């Protein structure tokens, strides 16, 4: 079920009504049932996969909690990891690895046919797999005890607002709220509705409006001039941000109305002054997951300079692969890793962001922000390119530098719309800053936005991150 669908407009009030009238015990059953309905609306067959993953991790964690000896705990952890990664690997990477192996053998002169196996990628599998894994790892590290209630754990894995595209919540943050949800106060209603409006605005009014322009360009870059390619690169940079952060905002808003607070997944990333800072503000739940469960266990920065750079690159290559089963995603991850490694080498990563107080500092900040933004734009040329051939056409197409006037004012207009939301939030260090406006200003503003969504909601464009 899409957030930006008529079905969800009916589904959500029904769930809120049922949850609002239920006690804690029934509340979590209702939420679990609603989560399964939400997920099953795409393809009910994949519910079995979700439930299977839930039962395995729940059982493993319980057994792990009960076990005293380290080898047994380790064995159980391995069982959980292998199970989770096997399922993810089969559904997401089987064709990719088989295809790559076949291409390698063929390039070496061998004769081998690619097996024909049509595998559908279950929506959200990359997200709920990481979420479930973080729980078993935390139990293994004794950061938390195993949960007793299978129902509550199932809800933790399947909680519908963040099930298909995050934020990837930690058990330490979400489980206590599932077991003891907060009261739905006027503040929560305010925050929830405002976040939903901001999220839907980003998604339906900004991202979906750009999609018609960027889609054809990225799918056939050879047919476009340099000006059009550059314009599409800028626009896609805004589109993916509005699409993904819009989803996160809606998820957080919906969850607030259910009395559960989700983490902030984006903090105005395009105002970052370095790529390192960008990744502290972009898809925070994933980057912190990779930091805590991959980079640090690999040794982080504790095992010397060379190993640190190796760990950084490895983490980012895996981050790229997590995003999609294609070599272009691996290159995208690697490019981010290189950026971060270079910033680390020059000490930029350790420099705190400038809080400008003088014109000189303002200038420095603007230059750093603009430069960082353009480095990110380059990565978003790689990211959506289906193949290296398309990427090559894209880059060589830009190199021709023809028809540059086609870049036009549109990226600036879209950027202005995005920064109209981001700059106040960033300046106040508060993503609920709009709630501080007088009610007579907020009310017509939100009404206008809701009206615009009603007019443009017909499109029901899926979120980009659903494919991951």
């Amino acid at each position, binding site marked *: 079920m899409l957030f930006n669908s008529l079905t969800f407009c009916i589904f959500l009030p029904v769930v809120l009504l049922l949850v609002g009238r239920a006690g804690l015990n029934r509340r979590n059953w209702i939420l679990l049932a609603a989560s399964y309905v939400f997920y099953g609306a795409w393809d009910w067959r994949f519910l079995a996969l979700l439930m299977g993953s839930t039962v395995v991790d729940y059982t493993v964690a319980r057994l792990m909690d009960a076990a005293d000896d380290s080898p047994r705990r380790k064995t159980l952890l391995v069982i959980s990891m292998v199970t989770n990664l096997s399922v993810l690997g089969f559904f997401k990477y089987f064709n990719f690895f088989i295809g790559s192996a076949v291409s390698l053998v063929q390039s070496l002169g061998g004769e081998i046919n690619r097996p024909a196996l049509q595998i559908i990628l279950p929506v959200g599998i990359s997200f709920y797999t990481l979420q479930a894994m973080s729980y078993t790892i935390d139990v293994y590290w004794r950061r938390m005890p195993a949960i007793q209630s299978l129902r509550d754990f199932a809800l933790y894995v399947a909680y519908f607002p963040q099930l298909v595209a995050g934020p990837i919540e930690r058990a330490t943050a979400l489980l206590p709220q599932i077991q003891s949800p907060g009261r739905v106060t006027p503040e929560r209603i305010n925050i929830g509705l405002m976040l939903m409006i901001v999220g839907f605005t980003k998604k339906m009014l900004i991202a979906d409006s750009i999609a018609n322009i960027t889609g054809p360009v990225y799918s056939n870059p050879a047919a476009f001039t340099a000006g059009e390619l550059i314009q599409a690169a800028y626009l896609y940079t805004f589109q993916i941000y509005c699409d993904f952060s819009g989803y996160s905002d809606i998820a957080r808003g919906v969850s607030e109305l259910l009395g559960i607070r989700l983490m902030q997944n984006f903090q105005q990333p395009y105002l970052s002054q370095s790529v390192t800072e960008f990744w502290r503000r972009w898809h925070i739940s994933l980057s912190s997951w990779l930091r805590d469960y991959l980079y640090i266990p690999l040794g982080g920065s504790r095992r010397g300079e060379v190993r640190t750079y190796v760990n950084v690159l490895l983490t980012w290559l895996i981050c790229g692969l997590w995003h999609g089963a294609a070599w272009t995603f691996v290159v995208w991850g690697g490019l981010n890793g290189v950026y971060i490694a270079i910033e680390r080498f020059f000490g930029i990563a350790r420099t705190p962001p400038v809080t400008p107080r003088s014109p000189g500092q303002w200038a420095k900040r603007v230059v750093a922000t603009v430069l960082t933004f353009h480095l990110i734009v380059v990565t978003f040329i790689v990211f959506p390119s289906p193949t290296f051939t398309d990427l090559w056409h894209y880059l060589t197409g830009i190199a021709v530098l023809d028809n540059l006037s086609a870049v036009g004012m549109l990226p600036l207009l879209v950027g202005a719309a995005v920064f109209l939301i981001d700059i106040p939030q960033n300046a106040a260090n508060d993503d609920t800053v709009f709630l501080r406006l007088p009610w007579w200003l907020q009310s017509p503003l939100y009404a206008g936005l809701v009206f615009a969504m*009603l*007019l*443009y909601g*017909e499109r029901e464009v899926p979120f980009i991150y659903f494919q991951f």
Partner: protein
Amino acid sequence: MSSLPPPSVGDRFAAETRPPFADRYATWWKVWLPIPLLLVVLDVSFNAWFWRLPKLTGSAADYSYQYLYDLAHLRGTKQADVARIVVFGSSVSSAFDPYQVRGLLAARGIAGPVEVSRLTKPGSKPSDHRLVWHAELDAVQPDVAVFVFNLVDFLNPSFERNLKPDIRAVLPPWQTLRERWRYIPDMRERLALVTAGVSNLYRYRQPIQSAVEDNAKALYRWLRSDDGSGGGYGWFEDGFTRDRFAVPLPDPPPAAFEYFVHPAWLQQRGTVRLSFAVDGRPLATRDITSPGWKSLPLEGVGPGLLQITADSTWSPRAAGLGDDTRLLGVRLRAAPAASLNHGQAPFRYVQRLPADVDDFLRMGYARGNAYADTWQATLQDGSEFSRRFRLYRDVKLATRERRFEPTGEFAELRALVGELTAAGVSVVLINTPESPLLEGVTDSDFYRAYLQFFRDLAHDDSRVRFVDLHDALPAEDLNDWHHVNYFGQIKLGPVFAPVLEEELARRKVTAGKAADAL
């Protein structure tokens, strides 16, 4: 779980019960309560305000909006002493220009005022029209319903296929749900129809979107336009003008302004109305019913810009006067100096008027063999248009191998005609031209039976007439296999007018006899 450590990641509010800035938030109900209230008020009062907004663009800009707009203006507006003719059909119904036919009827001196409207929805079928008429007949109250159709309208039944969203947009939602429930496989579409049934804002979201966008564009154009005072505009070197033109008046101005109304203009349009203004101030209006040189006295008019607006244009090519493809207005004694022709027509809020000719002419201005060559090249050019029309060709040619069965959309049409005549409405069925380039379709048994079906309908009921125009136009007067271009449209107006005049007269006689009997 109370012993759990606080979250290691997440926003700064994650472990708190209240956000730090919550005290500075506006009161929640003051912010949020007005929004649903406002939307409900807008929704409930929708029909009272939305359709009063002028539609700024031509029908091709958004056919659904045009259809719903025209339908809304027909609802509950029938005047007892005005004969109402409503034309409807798919895209082929654009062969009928209601504004032109109204002018021609008026020129033929029929008794009493006549109103002619057209409801065109590309892709719609008889089953769709029946749904609309079933819901709207009492409110619209036509005297004569004219169904303009082509063979293609009967070859892919609407009720047996998933409803296209753009067709669904013009259908009455509850009626559609009741009659098509089992043909709508997708629950989301059913849900959309239910929502459209209870909410005007949802049902009419597409027209609202078009209206908002059209007005935004108009505002942009208005900001960029000049007031037209920069000089004259709208004339050609040979002295002919467009429908809107202006000439600078010298100081002192001449005693009269002279202009020529071409006979072909009146043949094509019946009457012509010219509105005169000086520097935007209305000066005079002339209803012209006879051709020739005319004169407008300019006594007391100072120097300035004389602006003239005609309510229609005429086509020399459609009149058989050579290959001149322009759409023209009057002719001046002599064209003003080219140096004076540098202004732009002033901004007009409603960009298109009912009198404007639909500008569809895909094949350029070619004629004869050049037209046939262009059409063949277009069919093969790999575009979506060519793919669609190759498909139409194949579907139409395939009818030669079929036996005619008056089921499906034919049965729907029979039911529609029955419903209309039972309500006292006269029905005129018009079969539009087929392109002569599509050989073999019209001389098949299927096509003969197809025509016979309509003849039988007309034969069975004296209130039903059938006009067959399948061979009325040469290929060059069509855009493609079955859509006429504007030359064809202009030529067909004088064919429709006498048929409608006859039907209106018959109704009058019948009504008179009924009154005498009483």
